[in-house]
Structures are given as structure tokens and as C-alpha cells.
């Protein structure tokens, strides 16, 4: 067994386990912590795919910025455990779980063969994942979307201040 296979199996198991924990934990803080672990597992998976720069950004943006914000809001609102989640086990939940299970079965069946015929990372992948190459492409071919996304960030900053501010002094 190569290192690639071992790493993939461990990280995949970790990713799925933390994902399930996120969906089932009643306490929002434990859910948030499992999501953070999930992000670390994903970052490891990116490394197995030769996407080094993305792996670093994944930790910085998701675990470092977004999840800190989420945990901060949970603390701020002082949320307790979600009450009566079990009593809330209605037909909708049952249908969801049944459908998810069916879908996952279907996926596993579909992918047990090798329909795509791709067994190996492309030779170019090592180059693509490097910060230098990503910077090159981002500031040449992708310059227009790069500028456009700044609009979105501006909207988000202004909007969240408007929504979250308690009073507006005129």
C-alpha cells in the first residue's frame, strides 16, 4: 500500500465521521468543533491531490476566519443544547434519512467500477497547485472575476453591519 492510499483512507474516514458528528450533535459548540476537524481533514485531502496552496488557504479561511466567527456568534447568543430533537423525529426526517441512504448506496454502486478510467493524478497537477502558478493564473486569465468578487465582499461587509447594528444614529 502506498502512502497516498493510507492517507486517503484515514482522511476520508475522518471527514465522514466529523461530517456525521456535525449533523447529529445537539450542542452547537460540539457541532462547530467537528466542522473544524472536518475542514482539517479536507485540507489533508487537498494535499493528497497536490493542491498545496489550497490546503493552506482552506485552514486559514475556513478554520481560521469563518469558524471563529461562527463560534463567536454561538457564544454571544449563549445557545444551549437543541431541545427535543428526538421528539422532532417526524416523517420528514425519516424520508430524508431513507433518501440519503439510498443515494449513498447508489453512489457507491456507481463508483465501484472505474467508469472514468482516471487512476493517476495528472502530471501537471504538481505545477498547478503551487502558489506561483495559481498567482499567475489568478492575475492574468482570472483578473475580471477577481475584481468582481471584491464587490461581493464589499456588499457582505456593509450588509452585515446594517443587519447586525442595534440602532442607527442619524
Amino acid at each position: 500500500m502506498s502512502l497516498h492510499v493510507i492517507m486517503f483512507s484515514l482522511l476520508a474516514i475522518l471527514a465522514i465521521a466529523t461530517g456525521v458528528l456535525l449533523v447529529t450533535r445537539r450542542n452547537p459548540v460540539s457541532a462547530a468543533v467537528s466542522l473544524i476537524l472536518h475542514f482539517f481533514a479536507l485540507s489533508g485531502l487537498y494535499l493528497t491531490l497536490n493542491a498545496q496552496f489550497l490546503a493552506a488557504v482552506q485552514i486559514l479561511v475556513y478554520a481560521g476566519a469563518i469558524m471563529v466567527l461562527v463560534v463567536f456568534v454561538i457564544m454571544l447568543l449563549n445557545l444551549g443544547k437543541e431541545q427535543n430533537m428526538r421528539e422532532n423525529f417526524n416523517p420528514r426526517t425519516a424520508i430524508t434519512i431513507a433518501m440519503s441512504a439510498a443515494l449513498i448506496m447508489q453512489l457507491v454502486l456507481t463508483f465501484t467500477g472505474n467508469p472514468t478510467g482516471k487512476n493517476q493524478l495528472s502530471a501537471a497537477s504538481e505545477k498547478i497547485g503551487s502558489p506561483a502558478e495559481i498567482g499567475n493564473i489568478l492575475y492574468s486569465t482570472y483578473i475580471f472575476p477577481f475584481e468582481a468578487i471584491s464587490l461581493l465582499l464589499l456588499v457582505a461587509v456593509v450588509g452585515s453591519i446594517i443587519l447586525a447594528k442595534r440602532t442607527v444614529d442619524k
Partner: protein
Amino acid sequence: MVQDLLFTAPFTFLSVMAIIAMVLDALIVNSSRITFIFSAITLLFSGILGISTFGLHGIGFNGMVTGGGFAAYFDILFSIGGLLTILTSRQYLQRENIEHDEFYSLVLFAVAGMMLIAHSNHLLILFIGIEVMSVSFYILSGYMRNNAKSVESSLKYFLLGAFATGFLVYGIALIYGSTGSMDYNQIALNINNNALNFPALLPVGVALIVIGLSFKAAAFPFHQWAPDVYQGAPTIVTAFMSTAGKAAAFAAFIPIVTVLMPSAPVKLQMIFAVMSAATMLIGNISALAQTNIKRMLAFSSVAHAGYIMMGLVSGSQYGYSGIVFYLTAYMFMQIGSFIIVAILERNGEKYLELSDYAGLSKRHPVLAAFMTIFMFSLAGIPPFAGFFGKYFLFTAAIDAGFLWLTLVGVLSSIISVYFYIGLIVKMYFTEPEGQREDNEVGMSGLSLIITIAGVIVLGILPSGILSIASNLFNSTH
């Protein structure tokens, strides 16, 4: 580079001006009047820029965006929608006591996002455009922070919208994986040449992207958010979201469907036909039972998404130009009726029930007459714009061999007549109850006149816009 900038001129201009509007608001004390005028003029100019770039044709920024023609037409349409919203909003915001200048900048940003959607020639631009528009909408619909309904509508919109974004992105990822590209032209080329990496993934990707976009267009079965969000959001925001937002969703749909249709033409047509029929019926039947006018118009807006989808079913140039025509007509009639609702509404959600419209003809004969025209047009009664819009879409569906869909369309139009005419009957043939304060019309009057002119002109002389619309699809698009 200059050429690239020219292609996106309305978008670039609008986004720069939106940022300046935000700075103005920070620098000047009591700036609301200035920001208001500034934003209105900005939208006017971006519309003019849209007209002047209309003749261009090509692809810019390394194949990311298209310019001229189709994109420019939608630039103009979105600018008109934004302008009508802003003209109406000042008075409404003052009355609701929520006039913060960010409102105008947010409307400008939302319009910029819609323009990105119309310009997109790359799945990434489409995605960014949809997000800029949606995030602005989430904020705008929760703009009345102290009103629980507004916050609730914002939360529902946000959660379901972000959920739908997940499906949209997954669809994009699978289409990218199976065709090996995100560029529309390249995707179309690879599909037509059957040069696919993973043919099995393409239909899944197509299905997911259709789900994501139908959510934005509020089509069955992804329409459940629409009534709640449209009812809870501030009335002018609803007017804006339900028209310009829907137009943007279809501006995304048309190029995507053009590109992806060859992968499974019969199945895709059938899917759109079933969605269209169900959307029309459910929208109109649910609207029958409503007592709140905003909710009624919200369901009617769902139904209209169904009519517009008939154009996608046909998948032809004729159907697409029918969509463009209908979106234009719909922009005027829907915003027009919401402007009247906004004028009559009073602080604290008063006068939003259908019963509050009893005897409107005696108190406000002009408003009642205008409302009557909008309702006739929405119901598709000649000689107003809505009639020709429906006519073009219905004939497009028949040409494509979907006679049953047209029959469902006619049937649901007949159902819709019941509640549209019901409102007119209420306004003209029942007595008003009690006294109430007078309603000033102000700047909303200007946008009312624009919308009514649009509805009547498009109804009497539909051929002009229709020939422009069908020329949009003559060339590569």
C-alpha cells in the same frame, strides 16, 4: 483591454458609482437626498451605456464575458428596474423610518450582480453574479430590522438561497468535470463533438444546475420560499426582487440551456414542460386563496415564472425572444402594481389586505384606474403588454409540439383572471370602510407613469421590441 472594458461598460460604470455612493454617504452629513439623486442618475447612465454598447458583439476578458446584444439588452432592462425601484423607494423608506443611504448602494450592487449574470460567458462569472445579486437581496429583504416579518423573510431567503447555491455549485463542478471546461463556448463545442471526459456525470450536473437556477427563478418545486420572502420583505424590495431578480434568473437560463440542450434535448424539454405546467397551476391556484395583496402578487409572480419557462421548453429562437419580451412586459406591470401597493401601505403593515382596497376608485380614481390596467395586463387581457407576452410564449410552445402545455397555460390564465378581476371588482363595486389618512404620491408618480406607459406601449406596438428581441438570438447566442 479597451475593447474588454467597453463590453462591460454598464457593469463597470455601475459598480464604480455604487462604491462612490457609499463613500459619499460616509463623507456628507444628511446625505440621503444626494445619494438618492446620485443613484438614480447612475442607473439612468448605465442604461444609456447599455444602449450605446448594444451594437457591439464579442467576447472579452479572456473569454469570461460577452458584450453587446443579449447582455446589453438585459443591462438596460435591469437599469430600468433599479431606477423604478429607487424612484419609489425614498418616500417609502422615509415613511417606514428606515432611510439609510446604504439602501441605494445595495440596489446598485444588486443591479451590478444581475448585469454580471447577463454578461457571463463562463460558469465562474455566472456564479459570482448570482451571489452578488442574492447576497444583496438577503440584506435588502431584512432591511426593516425591527420588523420581525422582515427579519424572518431574510432568514428564510438566506438559508434556502445558500442551500440552492450548494446545488448550483455542485452542478457547475460536475459539468466542468465532464466537459473539461467552464467556458460556455468550449462546453458547447465539447458536447456537440461528444468529446466528454465522463459522459455519465453530465446529466447529473445539468439536473443540479437546473435546480439551482429554478430556485432563483422561483419555479416549481423550488418556489416555496417565494411567498414568505415576498410578503415579509419591504414592499419596494419585493417589487425589485420579483421582477429584476426573475429576469436575471432567466438571463442565466437562456445561454445555459442553449449550451446544454444538445446533451439531452428531449428529456430537458420534457423536464421544463412539466416544471412550467406545475408552476403555473400551483402559483395561480394558491393565489386564489390569499387575502394579503403582497402574498397574492407573490403567488402570481410564481405563476409568471411558469409562463416564462414555456419559452425554455421550445428551446428555439422564437421561444427565447418570447421570454425576453415577456420579461420586459412583466418588469413594468409587476413593479407598477407593487408601486401602488407601496403608495397605499402605511407604517406597520397596514392596508395590505385585499379588503383594504374596497372602494379605492372613490378615494383614488387614478390609482384605481392604473391598478386596473396592471391587473388586466397581468391576467393577459388585450390590448396590454401581458397579452402579447403570453401569446408569443404560447405559440412558441405549440411550435415545439407542446400543445398540452399551451392548454395548461390557457387554463391557468383563466384561473388567474378570477383573482385579478376580483381585485378590480373590489376597487370599483364595493363601498370603502372608514376614514383614513391621505396618501401622497410624490416621486412614485414618476415611476408609475413610466410603468403604465411601458405596459400600454408594449401592448399596442409589440412588434418593435419583439423584433429587437429576436435579433438578439440571430447571431451566435
